[in-house]
């Protein structure tokens, strides 16, 4: 077998050196009775060419997605991923290595982490950033747990306009900790601030608000943080579409205490849902309650600047059951991907792409409303996703879009059961949809 270099002859030779006559002698401690006798009932080994053919054939059962442009986002956004990034990610030194426990052999990984931590700090204007969570949903859940530890209170308010998967993940994570989750309704697709004022109390540890929210709505975080802080709770700002940070004010400027973000848009393909790239950002005073790995600057014996994993006394391998989280393996390669992506985009590129997404989305929304087949359900400011009610038949629309190589928008009733959401669609637009494409979409949907 090409992945196992030792030959039968070498195996025998090594057994002899070990001082046993057969392999069986080495596994005597596995009691008979629990031993697996016989042969695993899985398919016989296939050659590389057979493997390629098999997987290609399965892949063909998917749509030809490269040329099928999504009109859907909902927590997973198709942006252009530069070829320079993809090519760099293929360097084996980056993807075949382990967690950087030995800094002398891992400066590449560690410096990239430190750089991405810096980019996140610049985008969020938060003091401490930690790019070591699986995804935005689990990052939000960890932020909720963090707030319970910081505040020693047992209620968490979560806006109904937070991504449904994120909300469910938060529920799953806090379930063992006797925490009451209070859902904060929306009004006109944004957080209902009057309801927030009624629901907030001294027992509330944190309030979780997504921005832009699940409907694409742009929240007034400064106003929300005023209400949250009036009762000494923490404001957690979930960000599912981090590309928005290119033109939106930084959470750190609006009173946010913890940012729980998803950086998939920074250089990751859709990959049918993962791996993406979760991160947290917070104030320095909360540093020791953060879960996961963080890179820090120090010096080596020659007084050169180098990077190491630091503030390790929070982590599971040292603190065991007293750790801030169980997280160990993270999405390290995705951290690198985001570092490369943001380096390529730079100051100007990130601003431009973020702006382009907004403008293109507003262009499409205008056209669809004008064509007469759609109507607004809410009148609200949005970033690159928006809700429209389809006046015609949704399944016909779905079919027409698929026929023309567009992935249809999300039918929001899948997640929200209110009657008014019947036939309401959540559209997403990124830079991949040119003006020409958007005109074509409008044409298809106006027929």
């Amino acid at each position, binding site marked *: 077998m090409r*992945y196992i270099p030792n030959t039968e002859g070498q195996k025998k030779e090594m057994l002899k050196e070990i001082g046993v006559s057969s392999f069986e002698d080495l596994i005597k401690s596995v009691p008979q009775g629990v031993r697996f006798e016989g042969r695993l009932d*899985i398919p016989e080994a296939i050659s590389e060419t057979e493997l390629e053919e098999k997987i290609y054939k399965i892949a063909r059962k998917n749509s030809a997605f490269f040329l099928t442009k999504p009109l859907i986002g909902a927590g997973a956004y198709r942006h252009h991923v530069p070829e320079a990034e993809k090519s760099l990610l293929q360097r084996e030194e980056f993807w075949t290595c382990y967690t950087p426990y030995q800094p002398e052999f891992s400066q*590449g990984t560690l410096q990239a982490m430190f750089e991405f931590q810096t980019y996140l700090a610049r985008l969020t204007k938060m003091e401490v950033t930690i790019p070591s969570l699986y995804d935005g949903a689990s990052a939000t859940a960890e932020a909720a747990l963090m707030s319970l530890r910081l505040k020693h209170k047992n209620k968490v308010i979560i806006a109904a306009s937070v991504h449904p998967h994120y909300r469910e993940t938060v529920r799953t994570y806090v379930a063992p900790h006797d925490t009451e989750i209070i859902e904060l309704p929306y009004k006109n697709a944004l957080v209902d601030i009057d309801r927030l004022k009624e629901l907030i109390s001294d027992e509330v540890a944190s309030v979780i608000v997504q921005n832009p929210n699940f409907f694409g709505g742009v929240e007034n975080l400064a106003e929300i943080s005023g209400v949250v802080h009036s009762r000494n709770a923490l404001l957690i700002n979930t960000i599912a579409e981090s590309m928005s940070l290119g033109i939106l004010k930084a959470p750190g400027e609006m009173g946010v205490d913890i940012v729980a973000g998803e950086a998939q848009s920074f250089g990751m393909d859709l990959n049918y*849902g993962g791996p993406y790239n979760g991160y947290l950002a917070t104030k320095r005073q909360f540093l020791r309650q953060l879960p996961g790995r963080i890179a820090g600057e120090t010096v080596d014996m020659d007084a050169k600047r180098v990077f190491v994993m630091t503030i390790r006394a929070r982590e599971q391998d040292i603190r065991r059951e007293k750790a801030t989280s169980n997280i160990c393996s993270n999405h390290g390669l995705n951290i690198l991907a985001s570092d490369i992506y943001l380096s390529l985009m730079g100051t100007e590129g990130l601003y431009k792409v973020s702006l382009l997404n907004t403008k293109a989305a507003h262009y499409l929304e205008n056209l669809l409303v004008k064509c007469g087949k759609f109507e607004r359900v809410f009148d609200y400011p949005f970033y690159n996703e928006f809700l429209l009610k389809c006046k015609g038949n949704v399944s016909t629309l779905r079919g027409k879009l698929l026929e023309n190589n567009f992935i249809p928008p999300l039918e929001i009733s899948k997640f929200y059961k209110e009657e008014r959401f019947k036939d309401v669609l959540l559209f997403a637009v990124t830079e991949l949809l040119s003006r020409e494409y958007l005109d074509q979409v409008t044409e298809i949907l106006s027929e």
Partner: protein
Amino acid sequence: MKLIFEKSAAGRDGYSLPQDLFDDINTEDCIPEYALIDGKKVLSEVSEVDVIRHFTKLSKLNYGVDDGLYPLGSCTMKYNPRVNEKLASLDNFAYAHPLAPEETVQGCLEIMYNLNKLLCEITGVDQYTMAPAAGAHGELTGVLIMRKYFAGRGEKRHKMLVPDSAHGTNPASTAMGGFKVVEVKSNGKGVVDVRELNELMDEDTAGLMLTNPNTVGLYDEGIKDIERIVHGKGGLLYYDGANLNASFGIIRPGDAGFDIVHLNLHKTFSTPHGGGGPGAGVIGVRKLLIPYLPTPIVTFDGEKYHLSQIGGKSIGMIRAFWGNFPVLVKAYAWILSMGPDELRNASEVSIINANYVLAKLKKYYRPAYDRYCGHECVLTGRDYKRYGIKILDIAKRLMDYGIHPPTIYFPHFEPYAEETMMVEPPESESKEVLDEFINAMIKISNEAEANPELLKDAPHNTPISRTDDVLAARRPILNYDDELRLKDELKWRTEDINF
């Protein structure tokens, strides 16, 4: 090395974007004033060429499996097949949106469905969830399944047994899952003390989290008794799959009575570790526990594959969407390439490799237990203490020989509490490579006696010398703009960075 920010030049760019043809749309009409930036956020300004050179340089400061032996204990750093990488990134997978209509993602669903079947056969359980993103994420999933299972039966079990030999993630996941950790001591042979287990296991205890072979590479001979004791008190047995590499075709956790089985598809099933991740810590269960799995799972109706919701007993979602899909493709491709015989051979060779290293080095680095091991062995550096040498020094010196050190930060329980290294040479390492490692280790043992300073200052041939971890923790500088950094005493020492 310089940071990307230190290579920035005003006006330079590295992006490629379609032209903005939306002059008729006004930004101020789209985004309300309360949310719109006042000025662009400053990132960096470098060209594509700068980026390629910067990261190529960075990559050269790393050491990967392709560079040589990476014998990290309990980490199974085996070769990552190239073809699997290509197949996992096929366009039809890479650009698949997780909420695309089911009829457009039949290929993705088929892979998840087929992989589930294979993993069930390999481990002897009935259904897997592909959702967990990493080993610890899978552990948390397993613990939450236990919690929900007992809650459904009206039982208030609040304790969980965790052997002292367990990885730190086990007690940490247990605590996150709302259970109190009760530690089970190891016996004189390095495995679970069955008598103590018998005393500790009661009807307030949810079960036992066990790694087998355990984290010091030893098979638990008492597994039958362990199973009888835990199940006898109505508890559940959780299998931590960190060390499954010693078990293919030899023992199936499901047959041995485990109710919940965790696997690391990264590591054991050859998918790469990526400098920390992403992995996939999938969780398999016996029939009884299928209703408690995270939702959804993939089902097949004879014609089409579906993402099917699990009913009300499910623990819910543990992340957004369905799993780390490319990792699943790679694991699937690996199993298909291996087949039943080579899977078994992988375990045989990894066990022979570990015992070979143990046999050759036990004279120089006394093992705590003199017995055959599984796929990894634990050596100690006790004999070098008298020269003032710590295990860390031996590990650092190994880098000078071009070999990644074994795991030294773990295990940390008696008799391993200090001065140990856990060596795991997986099946992708040849005898020749192991001999080089063995020779280097023997040379280091001589150096420890003859020239201990050489070890204490090691490494000498790596891109950087030994790092000051204490300083990093005392003055945590966590990004380039960190206020500590800007006014820092370290600054003068970093000014002469010129590459």
